[in-house]
């Protein structure tokens, strides 16, 4: 069983940037991490080379733009997801994690001042009142892994809950939800659980929580009035994958469909750089081919078959249509799986309607 303490023990040192020294929540967080030495610096550049790794926590302010578009892939359909960076980097050590290819020499960074990020999301929501804004904090780190210590998600939930067009998604491979249960107003907050069969979790998902722990956490969350989402991503075609995934979906059986905000599917994919970092993983022995965005994926025919199979299992489990979408997939695959493109699918059209994110602000890109 994975515990927060075992994750915290991973860290050896904390660096704190000057701009967040005055924040009250710093004191609280450091109290929870009191066994670790704390060094105050003016900026990240002062962290010595030997501490530029995932055993170091860097608590900082959010310099630059922390809100952006999910980096959609060329030639693949985008689901118009908006990302907000709170936690940068991860210690779960999943074999397939894309961050392996670009965050190897970085400390785990926490953007402790949430105000500007929240303000920016509200600004986007107000400028897109007729659209659903899906915003997630799990793009460059696990949303909940360190959240029981830093409690950043609470600020977002409280501030964004009054906005009916905002769906805030906190995506995780942990079961650390207890600190969120007591919050009064949840709005459209969605706690997203990345799922894989237990056999694959223990093989490829490092020190992440077990499937049972995640499902139990999903239950807790639902019972306390939150929405949940499930992400079968990456899907692996290994061994008796059909049975494995069917059982995993089956284990979610009693979660009421009206509490499931969406389910996403994505097959294993990787860049050349990531392949270098992944080493000799057995799943790499399958047939992967280069796609238009430079990423390697299973053959289109194979992927289409996998998605159709998983979709069938989902439809078997929950009768009414839960929004199910494909992550970073091509138009051809969408048509193969659904017979239609996302904007033509009733339950997905709201999700896939693009929000004007940058047109309403002076800054045109993200620098974080």
């Amino acid at each position, binding site marked *: 069983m994975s515990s927060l303490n075992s994750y915290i023990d991973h860290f050896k040192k904390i660096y704190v940037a000057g701009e967040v020294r005055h924040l009250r929540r710093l004191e609280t967080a450091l109290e929870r991490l009191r066994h670790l030495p704390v060094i105050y610096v003016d900026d990240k550049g002062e962290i010595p080379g030997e501490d530029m790794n995932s055993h170091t926590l860097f608590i900082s302010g959010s310099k630059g733009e922390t809100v952006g578009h999910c980096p959609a892939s060329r030639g693949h359909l985008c689901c118009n997801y908006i990302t907000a960076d709170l936690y940068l980097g991860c210690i779960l050590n999943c074999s397939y994690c894309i961050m392996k290819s670009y965050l190897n020499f970085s400390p785990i960074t926490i953007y402790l001042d949430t105000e500007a990020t929240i303000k920016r999301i509200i600004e986007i929501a107000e400028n897109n009142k007729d659209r659903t804004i899906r915003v997630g904090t799990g793009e460059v780190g696990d949303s909940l892994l360190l959240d029981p210590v830093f409690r950043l998600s609470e600020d977002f939930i409280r501030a964004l809950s009054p906005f009916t067009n905002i769906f805030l998604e906190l995506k995780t491979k942990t079961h650390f939800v207890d600190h969120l249960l007591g919050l009064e107003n949840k709005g459209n907050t969605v706690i997203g659980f990345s799922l894989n069969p237990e056999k694959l979790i223990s093989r490829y998902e490092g020190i992440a929580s077990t499937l049972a722990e995640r499902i139990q956490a999903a239950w807790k969350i639902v019972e306390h009035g939150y929405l949940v989402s499930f992400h079968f991503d990456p899907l692996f075609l290994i061994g008796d994958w059909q049975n494995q995934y069917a059982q995993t979906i089956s284990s979610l059986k009693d979660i009421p469909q009206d509490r499931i905000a969406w389910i996403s599917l994505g097959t294993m994919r990787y860049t050349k750089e990531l392949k270098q970092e992944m080493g*000799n993983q*057995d799943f*790499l*022995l399958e*047939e992967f*081919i*280069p*796609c*238009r965005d430079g990423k390697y*994926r299973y*053959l*289109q*025919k*194979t992927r*289409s078959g996998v998605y159709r199979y998983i979709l069938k299992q989902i439809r078997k489990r929950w009768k009414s249509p839960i929004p199910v979408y494909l992550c970073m997939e*091509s*138009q*051809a695959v969408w*048509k*193969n799986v659904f017979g239609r493109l996302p904007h033509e699918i009733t339950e997905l059209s709201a999700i896939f309607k693009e929000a004007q994110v940058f047109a309403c602000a002076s800054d045109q890109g993200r620098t974080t």
Partner: protein
Amino acid sequence: MDYLPIDKLRSFARSFDLFTGSKPIKNELLELKFLPPLPIAGNELVWGFNLLCSATKAGYGRLQVVRISKKPLIELLRIAIILEDRAGSFSWEEMEKIYHLLVKNGCNELFSSLSPLLLGHEDSRLFARVKQFSSLKTQLKVLVDEKLIDLKTALHCNNWQAALIEDIGVLLRSGEKPLSFSRRRIILNQLLEVSVKQGIPEEKILTLVRNTLNSADPLKTAQALRFPELTAMEERFIELKGKLLAGTAIKLTPPSFFEGENFNISFSFNSKKALEKKINYLKTFAEKTDEFFELLY
């Protein structure tokens, strides 16, 4: 500068005797006695072991030396490598010797700093790579140094029996069709992955490699083994195309790797009649396209 008797120089410590690929000393220079002075640090010859050997054979009684005041090992090593003047052509074996010398003296972290002198460019991973080379079986080291196999592939083969590696070495050296280093690397990697995926026992790996290298197109053979589904799709496409479009001079191309939704058709014509003929072919073809689209579904 000073002179020292050859015998004395030959008795000096040889911890810097690292280079097996040193440039030979030209006979003319030996005859003219135009030899560079040998750097010595205390009783240690820093560079010039092949020069010393050649001079001994040529009957020299003494050689000119230049004494270097006490310097750290890494500095002496730097001098030796500079004097070798072979950036980019040091063998793995030589780099391994340098690696061992540094490890023995507790300064291995400085190894990568030598990369510009050894390789001709910076390489922060040189230490790691030489360390990997050092972990290889002797038979694989030979293949890597001969550029018959790349380091990464060699690492994957390191659990193989020495006899199998030697047999594969023989096969690679005697290949009837010359293969470039990169083609050989791709082929071997693909075969290695096939053997791991299919759990092919070691005694059958040699046959797999032999059959592939002796096939008409080794790269294509290896790819077909590594990507059986893709190969089957390509073969199916060719079969269908042959059945429906043979003799029509209409070119049909599938999307690259069967990834996408569009097939491409092209043809040329030089008269209305020729165009009408093509259109008729296409009409017949259009009625039977389902099997093509199945390749993408």
